[in-house]
């Protein structure tokens, strides 16, 4: 028993041994996501009062804002796990960052699409170069570049370090982007009032709906992240086993 376990750890060095497939928590998170999504859909369509000025289209707000929150959180996680990867060198951090970037990209795309659908009836245009829109779009391009790097450099052994560096640099660039874009827009004449300018959330039911939708999207993010992360862990483990097999075959060939 002792012999087999010590051989087992020799075959599974650091990083690879932690991969154990999908965690037991994942299905429960899936169920929770479903329940919360149904609840927020009900609240968005039945419970919350229609906003006085913008009418029915304003209800997209309750999905738009949680998507933005998840996108920003995911991209923050990319940078943090990148820093941990460069510091500790454990593949687990790279798998976490990569999974987070992919999901963040999905939600960032959803932010742009829902924002566009909302903008057309309210502002009369699918797209304006408003500071918030521009910043989100640049963020989308940044992480699109990150994912292109991951896709194009997939067979480079250093891809994890490249990803970490790009993730960190992109995240630290975001404050400068926000400042410059805001300056850029204030110099131009303000064609449109930003959506935060006109109205707050007067009705407490609006706040409640936004809160439930935010929790629903956050749980969904955690669920998706867990699934993708578990899959990447398995991929890492498979790579490691394949490498060891090749080594073993090579040394057997030498004998």
């Amino acid at each position, binding site marked *: 028993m002792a012999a087999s376990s010590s051989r087992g750890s020799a075959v599974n060095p650091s990083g690879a041994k932690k991969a154990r497939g999908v965690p037991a928590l994942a299905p429960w998170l899936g169920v929770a996501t479903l329940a919360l999504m149904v609840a927020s859909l009900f609240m968005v369509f039945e419970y919350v009062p229609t906003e006085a000025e913008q009418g029915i289209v304003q209800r997209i707000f309750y999905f738009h804002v949680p998507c933005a929150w998840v996108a920003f959180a995911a991209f923050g996680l990319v940078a943090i796990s990148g820093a941990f990867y460069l510091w500790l060198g454990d593949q687990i951090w790279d798998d976490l960052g990569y999974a987070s970037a992919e999901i963040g990209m999905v939600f960032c795309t959803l932010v742009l699409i829902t924002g566009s659908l909302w903008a057309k009836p309210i502002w009369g245009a699918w797209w304006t170069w408003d500071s918030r829109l521009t910043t989100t779009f640049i963020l989308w391009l940044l992480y699109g570049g990150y994912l*292109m*790097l991951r896709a194009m450099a997939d067979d480079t052994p250093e891809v994890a370090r*490249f990803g970490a560096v790009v993730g960190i*640099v992109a995240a630290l*660039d975001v404050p400068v982007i926000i400042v*410059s874009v805001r300056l850029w827009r204030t110099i131009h004449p303000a064609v449109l009032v930003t959506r935060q300018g006109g109205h707050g959330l007067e009705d407490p039911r609006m706040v409640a709906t936004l809160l439930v939708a935010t929790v629903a999207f956050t749980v969904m993010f955690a669920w998706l992240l867990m699934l993708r992360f578990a899959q990447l862990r398995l991929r890492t483990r498979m790579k490691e086993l394949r490498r060891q097999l090749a080594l073993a075959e090579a040394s057997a060939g030498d004998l």
Partner: protein
Amino acid sequence: MRAMGAFAAILRKDLRLELRSGQSTVALFALSLLILVVLVFTLSPDPANRAEASAGALWVAMVFAGMLGATRALLAENENGCMRALATSPIDPAMLYAAKLAAAFIFMTVAEGAAVILVVLFFNLEFGPELLRLAPPVVLGTLGFSALATLLAAISGRTRAGDLLLPLLAVPMFVPALIAGVKASAAALSGAELSAMTRWLGVLVAFDVLFVTLGGLLFEHVIGED
């Protein structure tokens, strides 16, 4: 002291290579020229917003020519495993980064001096003292671009995608400096007050400080091997 010696030695080698072959500067200048020609045909300069159009053209030429030409000194090290030798040598990676950044900055600055003259000719501007006021935004923007491109080209140069990947990574990251640089250059060319430029120059300085620091800190992770 030894660190500065390594910096000087690498930079001197790159400058000597450049003086003998002229590769980077000629490539940068030729690309700038072609980009400006394309822009003259596509923009059809209107006298009313000549300052803005010419400032924009200058920065488009700078970014896209720089993307292809600025990092030749760095990419040359990928041949014959020179980069591996540099990475394993006792040189501080930050110094190696600084030397490659300085080389890219010098080549780009030379090419841009020529590009400014082309912009004046193509867009019917005057040769005058306002061209000197173009120097702060252009120099600061070039420094930021060189810092960014040197770090990212070290990454893209080691993937099979190569040159294709660099713009995908660099252009979105360069957006703040691009906005600030174009605005400051347009203000300089239109003869506006110096105060109209200062906040844009502030953005450029912040961008430069951020990317030079990040490049120095992260370069070792980019050139190392697993």
